[in-house]
């Protein structure tokens, strides 16, 4: 054990900023991070043990106790539930004889829940030692458990053909499907790697930035900050070293478009990163990929290797003296909040994924305190096409204020869940029509994932654009048979609770208190005041530092606004109900003392007793 750990530590030069990589390698080797190893790491990195633990304990996929030879992570997202997760979970538990959160007594299999793994178009899905098992059925689960008992490796357990496109490449070998139903500039097959790089070396970095600014491209992760402006800020901030980050940590439940882009258009993405590097004057790029997509690691490494081989990455790119750019991959380890750009940077520095205070902004002081640009996968891909065809060409797509296209991840109740690259300006109705949803039967659409908005049919004419429905691309469709509050809103709220970094007070705790209030209503104890409380308390959440904390109440708030009747029909016709249940509250004591609860002592008896007493005293007198 010691020598392996030493090798890992040496491989990362005992550099504490590479703690994530160190922990990932050790977790992969042993299935957990043994306590003795924590001490060894702390010593090698010359930090306290608690400093290693603070990172280690932050991420969902790290553990200090064994997670089993086969660590099964079953997605518990809304879409997974809609597609029959409950039966899958039960079959796993029955077949394995162990519950979720546990490891079988022989240490062979661990069964765990995990948040959306980016497979919403092929749910229910699980990760087993990093291998994706989509489209699970109880039958398939029994097969898997049989194979586990027979000692097969997860790769050997795959029974279906590998998926379409690069999914079947020898470096991926995944049974995952791309489900690309509509292509545009980003997903277009019409792409020759290196063409845009040839073009930019003839341009000044400032001209590249101007071209991107002219395109009016805005960040595709959801926040929508103008890309050219971000680059310009970074370039202008004085520094010797700058960094380009690609944010491929897509964790918003219901999105999976970056998975498809990483699978099919990795070259395009790397070229986009190199262009960004050229434009802002950065020589190092970091592709931060969520742990759930670790199955793409070899493929992505190969794409980087090819980039070097063909001269798209490395030294003197495109023959231009001094245009150096290299990319390394940084994997996460299960933390939605790392999708926030400053948390992503913290994580890449080996720390807890806690968002930073701003100012300073990453473009001034980012990775290792140097100016850093963090761009979404799709943004960087779009850049390549903008360089090739010009900013004004790009502006011909979309609307005037929201130019270009958006890659949507569509899932839920529709015939063709998958990837659709559409121009900005599509209405929700257009999209429902496009994806084969039974429009009459659609109860609600969650636009932009849990941090977006839950809207009903009266708003389906709203359009996707930064001024109306801005979105990172997640669209989840719910038909009328879905219990919107219990199945959707509660799940989303729990998701935000689990994914809070725990730093800001309202995000850490008020989200829990609001969830409990929602549960009170769902359990039939709601009164009208509870709705007012939820609305008022939701406002306090604005005080949080980052987007996660600020949007955490949105599932409740947007459903309260748009589906108020679902709340109201559950309310009681009285002014006050604390939800206190006396029978439940005395249960433990009754059991401990073997008493039968008799709560409602008849009042008559009491009075009779007192009268008796008065009588007795009277007699004495």
């Amino acid at each position, binding site marked *: 054990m010691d020598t392996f750990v030493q090798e890992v530590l040496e491989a990362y030069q005992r550099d504490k900023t590479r703690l994530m990589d160190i922990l990932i390698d050790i977790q992969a080797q042993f299935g957990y991070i043994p306590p003795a190893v924590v001490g060894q790491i702390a010593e090698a990195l010359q930090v306290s043990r*608690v*400093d290693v*633990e603070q990172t280690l*304990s932050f991420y969902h996929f790290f553990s200090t106790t064994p997670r089993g030879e086969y660590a099964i992570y079953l997605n518990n997202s809304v879409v997974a539930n809609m597609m029959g997760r409950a039966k899958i979970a039960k079959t796993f538990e029955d077949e394995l004889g162990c519950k979720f959160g546990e490891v079988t007594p022989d240490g062979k299999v661990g069964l765990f829940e995990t948040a959306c793994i980016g497979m919403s178009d092929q749910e229910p899905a699980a990760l087993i030692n990093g291998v994706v098992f989509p489209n699970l059925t109880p039958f398939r689960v029994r097969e898997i458990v049989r194979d586990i008992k027979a000692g097969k490796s997860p790769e050997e357990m795959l029974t279906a053909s590998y998926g379409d496109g690069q999914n079947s490449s020898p470096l991926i070998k995944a049974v995952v499907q791309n489900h690309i139903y509509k292509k545009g500039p980003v997903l277009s097959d019409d792409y020759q790697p290196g063409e845009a790089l040839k073009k930019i070396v003839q341009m000044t970095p400032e001209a590249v930035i101007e071209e991107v600014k002219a395109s009016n491209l805005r960040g595709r992760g959801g926040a929508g900050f103008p890309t050219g402006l971000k680059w310009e800020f970074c370039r202008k901030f004085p520094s010797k070293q700058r960094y380009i980050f690609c944010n491929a940590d897509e964790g918003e439940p219901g999105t999976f478009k970056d998975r498809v882009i990483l699978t099919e258009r990795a070259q395009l993405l790397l070229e986009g990163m190199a262009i960004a590097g050229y434009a802002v004057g950065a020589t190092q790029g970091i592709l931060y990929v969520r742990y759930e997509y670790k199955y793409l690691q070899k493929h992505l490494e190969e794409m980087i290797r090819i980039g070097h081989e063909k001269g798209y990455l490395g030294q003197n790119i495109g023959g231009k003296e001094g245009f150096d750019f290299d990319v390394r991959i940084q994997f996460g380890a299960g933390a939605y909040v790392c999708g926030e750009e400053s948390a992503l940077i913290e994580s890449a520095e080996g720390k807890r994924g806690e968002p930073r205070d701003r100012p300073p902004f990453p473009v001034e002081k980012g990775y290792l305190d140097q100016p850093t640009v963090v761009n979404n996968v799709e943004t960087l891909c779009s850049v390549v096409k903008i360089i090739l065809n010009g900013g004004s060409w790009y502006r011909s797509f979309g609307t005037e204020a929201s130019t270009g296209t958006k890659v949507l991840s569509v899932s839920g109740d529709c015939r063709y869940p998958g990837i659709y690259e559409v121009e900005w300006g599509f209405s929700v109705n257009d999209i429902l029509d496009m994806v084969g949803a039974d429009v009459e039967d659609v109860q609600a659409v969650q636009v932009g994932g849990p941090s977006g908005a839950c809207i009903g049919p009266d708003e389906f004419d709203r359009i996707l654009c930064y001024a109306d429905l801005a979105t990172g691309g997640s669209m989840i469709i719910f038909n009328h048979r879905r219990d919107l509050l219990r199945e959707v809103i509660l799940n989303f709220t729990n998701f935000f609770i689990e994914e809070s970094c*725990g730093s800001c*007070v309202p995000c850490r705790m008020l989200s829990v208190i609001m969830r409990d209030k929602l549960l009170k209503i769902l359990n039939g104890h709601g009164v009208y005041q509870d709705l007012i409380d939820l609305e008022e308390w939701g406002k306090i959440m604005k005080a949080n530092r980052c987007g996660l904390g600020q949007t955490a109440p949105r599932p409740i708030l947007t459903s309260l606004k748009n589906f108020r009747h679902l709340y109201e029909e559950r309310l009681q016709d009285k002014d006050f109900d604390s939800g206190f249940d006396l029978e439940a509250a005395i249960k433990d004591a009754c059991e401990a003392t073997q008493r039968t609860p008799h709560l409602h002592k008849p009042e008559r008896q009491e009075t009779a007793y007192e009268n008796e007493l008065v009588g007795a005293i009277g007699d004495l007198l």
Partner: protein
Amino acid sequence: MSVVKFIIDGVECIAEKGEYLLQAARQNGIYIPSLCHLEGYKPRGSCRICNVKVNGRLMTACTTPVADGMDIENDTPELRDIRTAILEILFVEGNHFCPACERSGNCELQAQIYRHQIMAPRFPFQFPDRDVDASHPNILKDYNRCILCKRCIRAIKDENGKSFFAFKKRSHKVEISMDPTMKENLTEELAQRAMEVCPVGALLRKEKGYDTPIGKRKYDKQPIGSEIETAK
């Protein structure tokens, strides 16, 4: 250093450029309530009670450098409500039994609650299951009272800059852990310092406490922040 002008609640103020808003306001005799802030250490903006509106946007005063022409709202009903709510959340999140706490009367959470005239929290008490760690010879950690302000994390380090305290886990399950291997390095001086930087009674020197009689404690007579406001 250049001097900048800015406005807080209509009052014109001046400060050195780059000064954090919280201090800049205090230099001008305006108190912005704070809890996680610790003079002399890098601010962290985690308690969020120093939220003010800068040109209409919510920002934490402890982390925001003051700039020329900033228009700042501090004492408004909206901000008072946010602060009050956050204090109430902190109060129900832990197990704050003031009558039995060594820090009562000198506690900053309690002092803020007094300042904001909170009679009772609007939120239900969580009664979390939390531990007391009395294993160390010099210091006692009562996690029931911790408000996760990170002051001890930031302020208490050994001569090599190694931490004694750190966050552990995330979400509402987050906690402060004390390094077991660093125990012998936690000198009496550091323990004393840890107790002083802790705004509540979560870190205490052993065998010390209740040494100031009721009526003479720091916040018995005057609200926290009043020394800044009266200095004006």
